[in-house]
Structures are given as C-alpha cells and as structure tokens.
C-alpha cells in the first residue's frame, strides 16, 4: 500500500472561506444516513470498512458530495460482503426510477 497522501487526508492544506451556514439535509440524505447508521449500530457493516471504501474513491472523492460518497461506499461494502449483487441493485434501481417517474408524471 502506498504511503502517498490520499484526497481525504486534507488536514492542514490551504483552503478557501468557510460557508458557516448549516444547509441542513435533504430527505433522501436523512434516509441514507438512517440506513447507514442502522446498519453500523446493528453491526451488519463496520464504520471502518465504509470509511475505507470512501477513501478508496481516489480523485473521485473530491468530486462527490458527502452523502453521494457515503452512498457509494455503502454500495461497495454491501456488494463485497455479498448482501446484494450488482445485478439485483441494477434491477431495483430501475424499479425505483420507474416509480419516481410515474409519481412525477402523475402530478
């Protein structure tokens, strides 16, 4: 394993002004957080493996928003650990997408 500093290891680097307003969370982010927290508190997955999966994102780490990153990490770990397969996830995502579309069209 390389000892090179990875993108998540940013403490001490120069940065711009801080937006000191708390922007809150979207509903899906609250739900994603609750899912992750339920899984870690029940020890289905470990916080450390989720963090490792996020840190493995490399350059993509800085391109993704916080909950995009955690969602990506959860997907990686759930597939690695065999809780879900890529095919199951793709099928379920298509189903969810279709449901959202039909809700949007029904408005």
């Amino acid at each position: 394993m390389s000892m090179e500093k990875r993108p998540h290891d940013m403490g001490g680097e120069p940065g711009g002004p801080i937006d000191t307003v708390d922007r809150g969370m979207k509903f899906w982010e609250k739900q994603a957080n609750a899912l992750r927290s339920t899984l870690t508190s029940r020890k289905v997955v470990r916080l450390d493996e989720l963090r490792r999966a996020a840190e493995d994102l490399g350059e993509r780490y800085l391109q993704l928003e916080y909950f995009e990153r955690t969602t990506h990490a959860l997907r990686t770990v759930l597939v690695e650990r065999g809780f879900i397969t890529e095919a199951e996830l793709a099928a379920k995502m298509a189903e969810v997408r279709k449901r959202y579309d039909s809700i949007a069209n029904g408005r």
Partner: protein
Amino acid sequence: MSHEHDHRHDRSHDEGPPSEWEIMSRAMQELLIEKGVVTAEQIRARMEKFDQDFPYRGSRVIAHAWADPAFKRRLLQDGKAACADFGIDLEADKLIAVENTPEVHNVIVCTLCSCYPRALLGMPPTWYKSENYRRRVVREPRAVLREFGTEIPEHVTVRVHDSNADMRYVVVPMRPAGTEGWSEERLARIITRDTLVGVTLPKASSGSGS
C-alpha cells in the same frame, strides 16, 4: 405500503427529480428490507432519533455539568461513562470532553472524514463536513473562528482536537457570567451545538426573554 406515501410526501420538500444517488440509496434500502437484513421500522426509528432526540442531548449534558461539579469532573474523566450515568448511550467507543478555561479554548474537527459525537449533537452541520473547515481549522484556527464571529484573545491558547471513528470530542464551554441561579433547562438553551464544537461561545444574553 404506507411508507411509500410518507416518502413521496416528505420528498416533496426537495427540489428537482431524484439523483442517481438517491435512487441507489433507496434501492439498497429496499433490497435490505426485502432480504430481512433491516426493517423499515428500524430505519424510520433511526431517522426520528437523529431528528428529535440526538441533537438536544449535548446541551442537557453540559448544562448538568455546569450545575453539578461532581458530574463535570466525571464527564472530563470519562465522557462515555458520565453520559451513561445520565441515561445516554453514546454507541461510539470513546467520548473525550475538553474543558474551556480562561487560558485554553478548544475546537473540534475530523480532518479525515466527519467523525462527530452524533448521539450527543445529532448530525454534523454542513460546514463541519466541508473540505475548507477540515483543511484549515488545524492550521489557522483563529482565522477560522473569526469567520464564525468568534474572536479568541491572543493570550488564550487555542487547542484543536482531531476526531476519529473511535474517539469523539465535545467541548465543555465556560459558563458565562450572568447565568447564576439559572435552571439546567434554561442553561441548556444557551448551549448551542456550535458552542459544543467550539466555534462560538455561549452568551447569557441569548437565554433571556424566556
């Protein structure tokens, strides 16, 4: 299913169509529920805790520490055990309470991710997770605090604590003058989340008018 209805209802506050990430998150949740790994009820209960329970615990604990010196000593010795005495299970491995004094001001960060005493303060605010806060607060804490409107005098040492998944921090601010004789409930109202992260200081004036 009733949660479909709730979901649609709550989601309406968000703007625009769902992103691929939202769809992925939702799909993982549904798959895990179908497979019996978690239940919808567990996730809903968890959301409620984050919304209604966790964010207010920290203020109550620190107000109790201000009012009861023996509890404060215990909190500073072993944060997790003191919280357990107070009926709060922190889940994380270790809580380190750091006390502000006339000589030392403390501020917390997680430079590597976003570790935060969530069971005590709820979800971290957006800025705590931001790259600029993570980058800068360890190098130029006084400048960062100034952006929050907090000026720490030069003679006061500023100590920055970098959290990790197994070790979370909470700041015990100094009880401001003018709060003598206040109930713990009233004290808790001036102990905001930001004062417990150390980016602002509690003020007696913000608790008046109640």
